[in-house]
């Protein structure tokens, strides 16, 4: 009675709610239409869907109905309701791998291990010599985390089926599930010979190998003969393991044919999506060398810029430009070349490039190019040349940086309120402005401009001259000067600055760095005892400093140097 009522309710509901489903039923059998209606109800009315599936199960759509019931009963938490239906289905189709697999999954979900074993054995009897029972049972066991049991099943299967090679994928999965990484890699390599489409499964399984086991995986996949599918798996694994340089090297020695280029393209896109420009740059450049498509050279140039290799980017973008029509070159290649020139500090060349295309571009394109040119001038600290562009383009970050160069800190603060916080050119100015209330400082401004021009001598002079006027930011300004002198290996001038930071500004954020650099200078002067004193001072005075782990390492090294413990 309850069943009848449910069906009636479901039918009434369907008549109102699913006209689209009715439209699909044209030409379908009654059972098929029941399945289609049930499908439409699965997510919203699983109980009603179950009723329809059961009706379909009794008709001609047994298999789709059974699969549907598996889904909705799982949703409803009544998986055990499947068991009588499965018994009936198996009586009708004892060799159906779909039905048998649902049975294995159901018994696993219900944790009826004994019945699971019996069901598997029954299937083996019903389908002698077939691989399916073993494969599915092993897969169910693997999903349940019982890899050793899966291994036993597959081992016995190898003796009982017609073609033991049928199990290579499952054996590979078992090996990796059991953390036998070398064996797993070998088996996956064998599996890919028969079923290259399992590439993703191999990557997924081997990607879990811990650091210590990865070399053995590499050895297997790199072993001769050089074979693209194995190298492709390794390249993807290296990306997962955050080894972009090694990732590209995995393709070394693979003949560059069409299949290889397709693999490179997929790899390059993957590396790009994972923000690993070192790998994508190499791959796109290789693709360009094979295909001569300017688009690949441009993507390589973009990746080179992201990986900090502006010279390579400029070369690639120039190559790409030569292969493009003039309008496309201006649209796609010139901006990349400009960015590369800006990063290289070649603002003059950037200006020449913009001038060369100026007559051929529309105003909106020119604005984009001038933006790159503006940053080129700002990067080299040429405030005079940048100023008209900054005024015209009115960008917060550029305005802020120009104000810094002018020493107009008040205006810089205003511009920085809306500026992009990730702009690396503004990191140091932001740090400075957060520690001083000074409204103007032409000396500090010119120090920043000199830094941009890579004129470190002027920068140091200006920084030291302005330190007394910047209040709380004095240790930062001194540290900036000291870093420049240290980088120039001028310990004679740097050391007094570091020691002044440690002694006069002992509570400043720069003090631990002062101790560390003081110690390093002492090591360079072969004065191990001073180095030890400074490093110990750092560790005991600033135990929570981010530099403490590094200081500990250097302390151990200094002790080894001096023979103390």
């Amino acid at each position, binding site marked *: 009675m309850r069943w009848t009522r449910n069906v009636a309710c479901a039918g009434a509901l369907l008549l109102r709610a699913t006209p689209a489903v009715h439209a699909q039923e044209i030409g379908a059998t009654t059972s098929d239409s029941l399945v289609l209606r049930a499908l439409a109800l699965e997510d919203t009315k699983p109980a009603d869907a179950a009723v329809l599936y059961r009706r379909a199960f009794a008709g001609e759509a047994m298999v789709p109905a059974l699969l549907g019931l598996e889904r909705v009963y799982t949703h409803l938490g009544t998986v055990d309701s499947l068991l009588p239906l499965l018994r009936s289905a198996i009586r009708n189709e004892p060799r159906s791998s779909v039905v048998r697999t649902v049975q294995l999954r159901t018994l696993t979900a219900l944790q009826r291990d004994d019945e699971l074993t019996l069901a598997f054995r029954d299937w083996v009897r019903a389908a002698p010599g077939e691989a399916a029972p073993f494969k599915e049972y092993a897969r169910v066991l693997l999903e349940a985390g019982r890899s050793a049991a899966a291994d036993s099943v597959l081992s016995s299967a190898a003796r009982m089926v017609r073609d033991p090679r049928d199990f290579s994928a499952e054996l590979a999965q078992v090996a990796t599930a*059991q953390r036998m990484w070398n064996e797993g890699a070998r088996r996956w390599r064998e599996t890919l010979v028969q079923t290259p489409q399992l590439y993703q499964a191999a990557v997924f399984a081997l990607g879990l190998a811990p650091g210590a086991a990865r070399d053995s995986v590499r050895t297997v996949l790199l072993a001769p003969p050089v074979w693209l599918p194995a190298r492709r798996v390794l390249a993807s694994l290296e990306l997962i393991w955050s080894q972009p340089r090694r990732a590209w090297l995995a393709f070394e020695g693979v003949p560059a044919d069409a299949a290889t280029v397709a693999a490179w393209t997929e790899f390059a896109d993957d590396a790009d999506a994972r923000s690993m420009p070192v790998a994508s740059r190499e791959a796109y450049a290789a693709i360009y060398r094979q295909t001569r498509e300017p688009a690949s050279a441009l993507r390589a140039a973009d990746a080179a810029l992201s990986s900090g290799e502006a010279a390579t980017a400029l070369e690639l973008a120039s190559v790409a430009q030569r292969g493009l029509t003039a309008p496309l070159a201006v649209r796609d290649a010139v901006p990349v070349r400009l960015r590369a020139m800006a990063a290289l500090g070649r603002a003059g060349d950037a200006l020449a490039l913009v001038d060369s295309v100026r007559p051929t571009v529309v105003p909106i394109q020119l604005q984009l190019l001038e933006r790159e040119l503006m940053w080129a001038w700002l990067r080299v600290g040429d405030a005079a040349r940048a100023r008209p562009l900054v005024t015209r383009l009115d960008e917060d970050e550029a305005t802020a940086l120009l104000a810094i160069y002018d020493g107009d800190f008040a205006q810089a603060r205003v511009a920085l309120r809306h500026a992009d916080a990730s702009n690396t050119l503004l990191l140091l100015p932001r740090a400075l402005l957060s520690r001083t209330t000074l409204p103007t400082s032409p000396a500090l401004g010119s120090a920043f401009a000199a830094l941009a021009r890579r004129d470190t001598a002027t920068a140091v002079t200006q920084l030291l001259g302005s330190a007394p006027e910047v209040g709380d930011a004095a240790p930062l300004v001194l540290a900036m000067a000291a870093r420049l002198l240290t980088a120039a290996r001028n310990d004679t001038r740097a050391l007094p600055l570091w020691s002044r930071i440690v002694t006069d500004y002992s509570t400043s954020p720069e003090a631990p760095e002062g101790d560390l650099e003081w110690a390093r200078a002492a090591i360079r002067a072969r004065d191990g005892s001073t180095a030890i004193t400074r490093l110990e001072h750092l560790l005991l005075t600033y135990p929570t400093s981010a530099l403490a782990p590094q200081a500990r390492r250097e302390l*151990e090294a200094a002790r080894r140097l001096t023979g103390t413990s």
Partner: protein
Amino acid sequence: MRQVLALALLALTAVRLSAQHLLVPMDDQQRNHLKAYGLTYGALQRSEKAEWLLNYRGGAFLLLDSPATRRKAGLDGVSVTALDEGALATIRTEMSGGNFDAVPLERAPKVAIYSPPSANPWDDAVTIALDYAGIPYTKVWDPDVIAGELSKYEWLHLHHEDFTGQYNKFYIAYRGSPWFIAQVNRTVAQARQLGFDNVPALKKAVAERMRQYVENGGFLFAMCGATETLELAMAGMNVDIAGSFADGTPMDADADQKMDWSRAFAVQNAHLEPSPLINSMSDIDGHQVNVPGRRRALGTFSLFAFSARLDPVPTMLTQDHRSVLQDFYGVTTSFAKSVLKPGARVLAYQDGLPTAKYLHGSFGKGAWTYLGGHDPEDPQHEVGAAPTDLSLYPSSPGYRLILNNVLFPAAQKKPRKT
């Protein structure tokens, strides 16, 4: 709110001013577990009182709050908490109600490491651990052992040595390697210099001295292949158990029957590997890493828990902030339970396998401990691999097991109550 804050600050200041002890937690609050052992060892060297709070916060140490200890803790990055008498009393009350005990640590044990004078193309996990923790040790080698120098030390560590004198059967894979040829030449010359006919005879004599050392009250800790080969050398003292490569004659065909297992510490009724071409010594090792057909995959191993009051020694040896650890291979990785003597206590077992990872027992007046495997942080460690940099693993639970053994001889002796 301000009053509460002020009171809290006052209380904190009071604790700092009147602190008399430093608690060195060894649970997940500790930033550098391995250096904490060195901190404790240093306190003992300065004759300061120390206690090992078994099972309390991962096996914490209680030290005197001295300037030297505070300074070393700061330099080494070891987390410490200052305690006054009241706070300590609270801890002791807490400990009185559970599976805890406080073991006084009396003195810094004198440590010897049995290690060749030349560098081998593998590393010694114990040397690495002691160097990193800052615990001093003296290296001893065959001439020192034969000359009776072991009695000067309370703690002796063996690592990787093959006491059957067969060079770990490395001749199978490395006979052409310069380092192996040099090792053979050096060891043969050493044996002759010390009056022995061949290397197996020398190594057996060394094993016998070590056996006597333990019998007379010494503590011996062995890892990797030293565990298995020491057992074989002791039991095979009067049997030719070495292949012709090592001593010019093949192994005695009846060697298995002639072994005197009563002389061994941990093992009985094991079977020797008769083939000189199979890189295995016996069936003691359950993992057989160098025999492809027998090699067992690595899993995890679990530490047993013991009663701190009734079984303080095994409890000390198993203090750790993890109870399930990643397993690691060695020339000998594990010990088949089927060949263990009843007196060999299993401290850790490999999950799901008929093998033990970590064993302890007493012999005469002394004690021995065996830990299978080579390097806890390099599970597949191979000949020639780079040494482990422990600054990358300052909280290594596997290396803690090694350091537990260093401090264990420092404990005031307490007879086992079970």
